[in-house]
């Protein structure tokens, strides 16, 4: 299991390939990647603030919970902070399991908790507006299914 919090871009292809390669017992690998989307008015940049002392601990707790609840052979979480542009990759998770059901469910669980329980805050800057992204009610609701 590996959790990485960093300002620098990460190489999604290399990370995904490195995570999947050489496994003998995991039949199923799922990855999720979050990308900065453009917004109405044209996104100039997205700024991601985080709680440096807490972020890794929170992500590790979420990943540990996933490994406890599903039959996972491995899990990976990478999350960036700092200034990002449209099309930049914000984060990724990857899960490896014997069967696809565990790999899919654990990846969705990681995403649901990472959205609402890891200390990151997004701010969007457009030509005529700067604003913190509001938490979506459906993200909070998504936690209830687990």
């Amino acid at each position, binding site marked *: 299991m590996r959790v990485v919090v960093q300002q620098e871009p990460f190489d999604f292809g290399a990370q995904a390939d490195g995570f999947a390669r050489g496994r003998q017992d995991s039949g199923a690998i799922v990855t999720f990647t979050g990308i900065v989307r453009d917004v109405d008015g044209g996104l100039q940049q997205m700024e991601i603030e*985080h*709680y440096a002392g807490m972020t890794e601990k929170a992500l590790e707790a979420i990943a540990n919970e996933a490994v406890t609840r599903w039959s996972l052979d491995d899990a990976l979480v990478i999350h960036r902070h700092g200034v990002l542009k449209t099309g930049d990759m914000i984060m990724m998770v990857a899960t490896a399991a014997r069967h696809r059901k565990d790999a899919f469910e654990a990846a969705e669980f990681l995403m649901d908790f990472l959205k609402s329980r890891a200390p990151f*805050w997004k701010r969007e800057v457009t030509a005529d507006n700067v604003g913190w992204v509001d938490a979506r009610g459906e993200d909070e609701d998504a936690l209830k299914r687990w």
Partner: protein
Amino acid sequence: MDVLYFAWVRERIGVPRETVDSSAVTVSDLVKELSAREERYAMAFSDLSALRVAVDQELSDFDATLDGVREIAFFPPMTGG
């Protein structure tokens, strides 16, 4: 005790972190104490339902006691991922 603020809570209060001397028993007590001190705290803490709190770097709630706590953080709902 160190008190940290993130996102718009930080912007309203004007500092990312400060050391606070307080005899507050719970997080709620601390919020009331700070809100009484200056308007910027009262503004930031006006709607607690829009706020989250971490005690010693773990998510907690406003009823948590502050006995032995070294670090407390206030912030809006998280928007990672």
